[in-house]
């Protein structure tokens, strides 16, 4: 049976983006917000009407697209992607509200945000590899323009680098898709048909070598995704974008695109290559630990909020990778839960750092000599300080906030790999509490500096868009049960094919 909710979540933002080209400015903002909100409401209804304790794909919508290549428009949700839909649903209306007063080309910017929202929804829901890749490729374009047009001094260079890395990554994924497509008979892109080890034992001939399909495709896909999400040491473009992009755009990247990339990795690994995953899990965990530590160490050295955010993102990605590679139900559930939470946490961080940068002129909290530049904002603007405090606490995994659930589950799950990983991740968290508290202390506490003297507290609009982020961090921290119950059955099912 065909539900049309998923298509509605796609059509609303696309329609909104299209209207941006016609409608004039004051009204166009309301249309953008309405389109984004309408899609989010559809997404929330979608999640609310999912059956818990059901591991299958639900709310399916499917019809043939390119018949001669067996490409279908096949959309569905299950435990692996449900939380991403929640995340995108929360994130994009917030971003559109945060760029409400954009002076230059506000219609273009919001149109691109809407396009990005639609493409990420599509990439998350698609159950056909080709369709999924189609949306995933689409998501690179709005980001390129968002960075290239509205960024800082070096914006074009940063956008160029991001685009080159992205198109290289997409080409790698594309190669993997083709190899997979031609290795099964009848040729198919459908994730449903390819699921459950259909690729085991398949080989193809390349320059006289017999190569295993799943191994090669796994390597290509992971490499391709790591060029779109920041993986140490391929993160050069990412930090550059963090420096140049407007804060809302960087939030869209690190809280929207990066979790989706992680989701695609989970989907590919667990559905397409269960047997390769078994042997590669150590590598995934290794890369995860490397990222966790490198992200942490680099974050300690940062003096600006922008790069700090980039490296926090890097280390969070490492943590999620650890969970994915743990092959343990608790760890994997944690990794998937953390995709949502890291998105929300980074979004909160990016947004309040954007507000600080806007009011004080830049986003530096230390000068060259590592001395305080700002300070004492808590007395001038208590609401910002509380919001920032909650976001930072969630990033650190304080009990009662979303981060706690995710971190705890991943760390418990990672015990099954090696007890040492628990120690390492604990160490990384300690490191995180050092740099995050230093940041917090330097900005919000202490003497009131000259710059923070006239610091304004959040306006009504800013409160309105920070509220859903903070509220959901609290809610998902205090009451994770319904979401976890959505994830668990699917995770258990896919894990049973791995072992």
């Amino acid at each position, binding site marked *: 049976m065909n539900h049309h909710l998923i298509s509605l979540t796609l059509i609303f933002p696309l329609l909104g983006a299209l209207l941006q*080209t016609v409608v004039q400015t004051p009204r166009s903002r309301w249309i953008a917000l309405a389109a984004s909100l309408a899609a989010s409401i559809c997404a929330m209804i979608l999640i609310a009407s999912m059956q818990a304790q059901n591991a299958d794909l639900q709310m399916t919508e499917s019809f*043939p*697209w*390119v*018949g*001669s*290549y067996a*490409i279908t428009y096949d959309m569905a949700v299950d435990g692996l992607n449900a939380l991403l839909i929640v995340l995108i649903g929360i994130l994009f209306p917030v971003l559109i509200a945060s760029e409400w007063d954009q002076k*230059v*080309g506000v219609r*273009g910017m919001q149109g691109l945000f809407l396009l990005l929202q639609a*493409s990420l929804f599509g990439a998350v829901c698609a159950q056909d590899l*080709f369709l999924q*890749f*189609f*949306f*995933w*490729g*689409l998501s*690179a*374009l709005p980001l*390129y*323009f968002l960075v*290239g*047009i*509205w960024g800082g001094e070096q914006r*074009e260079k940063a*956008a*160029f680098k991001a*685009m*080159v890395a992205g*198109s*290289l990554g*997409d*080409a790698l994924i*594309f*190669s993997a898709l*083709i*190899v997979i*497509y*031609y290795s099964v008979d009848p040729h198919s892109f459908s994730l449903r048909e390819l699921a459950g080890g259909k690729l085991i034992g398949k080989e*193809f*001939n*390349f*320059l006289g070598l017999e190569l295993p399909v799943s191994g090669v495709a796994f390597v290509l896909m992971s490499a391709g995704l790591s060029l779109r999400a920041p993986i140490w040491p391929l993160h050069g473009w990412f930090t550059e974008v963090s420096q140049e992009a407007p804060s809302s755009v960087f939030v869209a990247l690190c809280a929207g695109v990066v979790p989706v990339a992680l989701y695609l990795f989970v989907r590919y690994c667990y559905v397409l290559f269960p047997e390769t995953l078994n042997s590669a899990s150590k590598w995934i965990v290794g890369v995860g630990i490397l990222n966790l530590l490198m992200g942490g160490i680099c974050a300690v050295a940062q003096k600006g909020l922008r790069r700090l955010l980039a490296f926090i993102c890097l280390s969070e990605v490492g943590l999620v990778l650890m969970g994915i590679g743990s092959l343990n139900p608790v760890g994997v559930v944690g990794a998937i839960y953390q995709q949502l939470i890291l998105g929300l946490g980074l979004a909160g961080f990016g947004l309040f750092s954007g507000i600080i940068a806007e009011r004080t002129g830049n986003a530096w909290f230390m000068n060259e000599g590592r001395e305080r530049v700002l300070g004492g904002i808590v007395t001038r603007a208590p609401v910002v300080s509380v919001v920032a405090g909650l976001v930072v606490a969630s990033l650190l995994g304080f009990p009662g906030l979303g981060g706690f659930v995710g971190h705890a589950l991943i760390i418990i799950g990672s015990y099954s790999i090696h007890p040492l990983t628990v120690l390492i991740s604990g160490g990384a968290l300690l490191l995180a509490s050092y740099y995050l508290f230093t940041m917090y202390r330097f900005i919000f506490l202490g003497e009131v500096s000259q710059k923070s003297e006239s610091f304004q507290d959040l306006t009504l609009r800013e409160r309105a868009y920070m509220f859903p982020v903070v509220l959901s961090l609290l809610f998902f921290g205090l009451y994770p049960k319904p979401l976890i119950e959505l994830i668990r059955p699917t995770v258990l099912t896919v894990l049973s094919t791995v072992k």
Partner: protein
Amino acid sequence: MIVKEFLYIMPEILIAVTLAFVIASEITYEGEQLRLIRVISLLGLGSAFFYAVYSYQYGSVPIFGGGFCLDGFSLFFKLIFITLAALSIASVGQTREINLGRRTEYIALVLAASLAMCLVASAADVILAYLSLLFLNVVSYFLAAFGRRSILSTEAAVKYLAFGAVAGALFLYSLAILFAYTHSLNIYDMHRALLVQPLPPRVMLVVFTFIFLSMSFQIGAFPMYLITPDIMEGAPTPAAAFLSVGSRAAGFAITIRLLIVVFTQPGLTAGHWEVLGGIDWTQIFSVVSGLTMMIGSLLALKQESTKRLVGYLVVAETGFMMMGLLVLDQVGIAALLYNLVIQVFALTGIFYVLAFIFDEIKSDRIQDLRGMLKRAVFECVCLVLFLLCLVGSPPLPGFIGKFALIGAVIGSGRYPLAVVGVMSMVLSSVAVTRLSYHLVGEFKKPATILTPELGRKVYLAVLVIPMALAGIFAGLVLKGAGESLGFIFW
């Protein structure tokens, strides 16, 4: 039934009548008749288009003693050519590169070229094929030289002429050898003769090499690709748009028909062909295809002129489309045709926006594009979309075409070529990103915003909408292309 045979070539007749009308009115009227001429020629092309669609019902029939054949394959190409000519004529009023007094001449040349292309697509007789190719090329030289005052344009035309002469001579020579061995001018008769008595391998090699060289001139493949960027840069931009698709598409039409009919035989499974004779020319083709792709996309990276950059991208596209032919099956050729359809819209759009920008800033240097996005948002966004579609960036329909081509070579086990293809795709999209990097630049600086013109927007919408539809209904288009091939030969 000679009357019925004239019915079969009705599209050509309609174009010829339109052409005659345009020439006559150019001679008789002075001054302000351009609008009338444009409308009449668009009407003529439109009726030819509908008649070509209508002609699908005739199936495949040989006409005039088999020298001319009407089949789905030729009709598909005719639809492409007629669309292209109509698009070119519709845009002629909006460019300043072709000055007012000479627009009628331009329309006449475009009509003549499209007539020649339609003949090429249907030719089953080598003499007809040669003559119509020559007709096409002579008109193309004029089109390339249309910017008479520009040195680049003259240089392009002279180079085009020199290369064309060599290619024509090689083609004629190879046809003469074929005739000597088969005593026939009709390619289907040649095929039957070669089935009974194949060419000796050495002769076969010579014939194939000559035909291949002359065809590589027509489609802009290695080693004769050298002039393609020159023509794209030198010719007036609207003419470059027309030549970049039209001349190559005609080349592909004749190449596919000639190679498939003369040098292959139907394979064991339907829709497959096998190499006829001792030499596996598909190997040569795959090397050339890889080289063309890599050369095109690598050189595109370093260009300073936008038109030249697009010229090299076109070369890379040619390499891509050769992949569809060398697999020798219907799926591959259908993919090739699909790519051609996409390119009609993408390349026309690219050159249209470039012509508009050239009119505004009087330069086609990439550096001078800086800040254009701010000045003309709609046009520049369309330009980037067209470029990305051309190189096959994922969300755009060009990607489905690339996928189909790469899929075709993988289906036949040529993985290295597929790897080269993917690499070339990446390099091309980097080249496009570099162009759009300059386009996007200095967006925040205040600049005089160019007055939006309704005609321009409508024209671009006319290009973007079918392009998007070709992506959304890719299944239908691919099926249509496959079915057109279904009743092509024998």
